[in-house]
């Protein structure tokens, strides 16, 4: 398998007036070509910071990369020139944001907004071809092409998210970052959008990182999954391996236990004690140690390293240090 993206020991912190927020701590993640990876985690786990880092869109002055690097197709993203970055963003990697209501320009027709992407990334394309391409992509995402002349406020939430997807895909990127693309939508519309994204992913052969807090979406939509907590990947494996629930990081395990699911019959959920990590303190041991029932003194002191429990399935936890996988 060919690697498309490689994030290595990335450390990102936000320096605010009040405190330093350690958003990513030794964050490492690989993505193969054509892979659909689900990234799961709670608020503040660092999911969005990860996505912004990949495109080098972190807010300047506030965000500081203190270590690690990101390689996209063999190129170091942090060393790219402005021109190279422009080519990277939109054409190579594109992003779908959570809120379709605010990610569209309200004073531009949706057709023009999609057209603009082509104008920027394929300046040599003729007006005629561009118009054809716009009509084509609109049809693909299930919007009648004549609606391209309408403005975002004339679309419903689900339709707007279709427009955003069309915009993200029109330049035929190799990597699609979708940051909670369906969180703002109703379940029946969510299902439609996810199906559409999967179809288009197959059609274009795009690699995809789907950021979500919904384990159900990952189970149905992704091939592989990375669980993020406290700014690092604490578990990574195929959906089959992780959702089999035989070997999991204690955090992943408690996540499974605290979501109400249609298939379980528990009368009470098992909440994770404590609160989501306060990332204002510099990390020392395992980020989950404070809330983990199996934590020992060692977990607080020493950061666990990666332990493979199966082929392609690793867990960052001292509990699994005697496992021999690959």
């Amino acid at each position, binding site marked *: 398998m060919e690697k498309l993206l490689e994030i290595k020991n990335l450390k990102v912190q936000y320096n605010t007036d009040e405190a330093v927020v350690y958003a990513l701590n030794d964050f490492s993640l690989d993505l193969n070509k054509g892979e659909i990876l689900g990234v799961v985690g709670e608020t503040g786990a660092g999911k969005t910071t990860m996505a912004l880092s990949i495109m080098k869109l972190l807010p300047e002055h506030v965000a500081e990369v203190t270590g690690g690097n990101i390689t996209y197709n063999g190129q170091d993203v942090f060393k790219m020139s402005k021109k190279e970055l422009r080519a990277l963003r939109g054409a190579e990697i594109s992003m779908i944001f959570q809120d379709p209501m605010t990610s569209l320009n309200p004073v531009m027709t949706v057709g023009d907004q999609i057209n603009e992407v082509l104008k920027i990334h394929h300046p040599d394309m003729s007006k005629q071809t561009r118009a054809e391409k716009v009509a084509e992509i609109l049809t693909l995402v299930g919007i009648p092409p004549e609606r391209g002349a309408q403005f975002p406020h004339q679309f419903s939430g689900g339709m707007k998210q279709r427009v955003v997807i069309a915009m993200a895909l029109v330049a035929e990127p190799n990597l699609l970052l979708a940051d909670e693309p369906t969180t703002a939508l109703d379940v029946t519309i969510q299902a439609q959008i996810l199906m559409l994204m999967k179809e288009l992913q197959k059609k274009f052969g795009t690699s995809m990182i789907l950021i979500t807090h919904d384990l159900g979406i990952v*189970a149905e939509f992704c091939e592989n999954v990375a669980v993020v907590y406290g700014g690092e990947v604490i578990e990574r494996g195929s959906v089959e391996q992780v959702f*089999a629930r035989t070997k999991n990081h204690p955090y992943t395990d408690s996540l499974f236990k605290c979501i109400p699911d249609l298939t379980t019959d528990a009368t009470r959920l098992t909440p994770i004690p404590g609160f989501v990590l306060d990332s204002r303190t510099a990390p020392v041991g395992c980020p989950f140690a404070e809330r983990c029932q199996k934590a020992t003194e060692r977990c607080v002191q020493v950061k666990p390293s990666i332990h493979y429990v199966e082929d392609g399935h690793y867990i960052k936890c001292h509990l699994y240090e005697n496992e021999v996988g690959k």
Partner: protein
Amino acid sequence: MSETLIQAVNLKKYFPTNAGVVHAVDDVSFSINAGETLGVVGESGCGKSTLGRAMIRLYEPTEGKVLYRGQDIATMKKEDFYKIQKKMQMIFQDPYSSINPHFSVGETILDPLRISKEITDKKERMQKVAQTMELCGLPERYFNTYPHELDGGRRQRVGLARALVLDPEFIVCDEPVSALDVSIQAQILNLLMDLQESRRIAYMFITHDLCVVRHISHYIMVMYMGQVVEYAPRDELFQHHVHPYTVGLLNAIPTVDLSKRNRERHLLAGEVSNPIDPPPGCRFANRCPYASEKCKEPQPLTEIAPNHFVACHECAK
């Protein structure tokens, strides 16, 4: 046998707009027993929040009755209603905007006691606040804390404490856990269920999350465009749901159960249509795979099994 605590009878709430009349809640009837939970599910704009607000007279119903222990609160005089109002509270979806940022946690919880003049003695009031905070899992040291210092889960606890301090019998919970992380969501859901057991509070639990609703409810009501399409006891609804909309809704939920991963999914096409001056007949017909000419007639709720009602002529057969 349990007693009926609150009942809606042919409740309607219309909103006149420039474009026409929005039928937000259209002829809805149901009842909730003391100590039980009715889960109300549906997509955005189906009228579930409007219904919740109309139940405690935050909205004046356009037509119909809301009976609380047999008394119609929708038409009674305001002065009389205020005496009952204490017993019905609401918790809101957004723990960020539903709490006054200028009030400390203690003041927020104290406020209902002050307004209702329920307890006149200052010392007793403070005791009641302390008790309620403890009940909701808020440590005493938060008394003088302001909302911006708390995270979403703790703020939702403040919202809950504010609702509980008057010892209500009925609480409308409008998406109380939607804005929270799953680990925190479980804490709040458990807390709500514990409180129900110890105090026999009835909940009307409004949500779009069917997994949550299954977890907490005794009865479930599915709404579509202001109308009830299906109503049944929880297990009956999840095992024998028949209305095409309920089927579509349940099919659309992603599950962590891998054995269902490759199931055939019947996804609903299209989107909710315009709620302005809807024609008579089934409002789901334009998205329904089984729609026929007969769907243009009004679809009354029909009992197809004990306590299981459905508004579809096809399913009722």
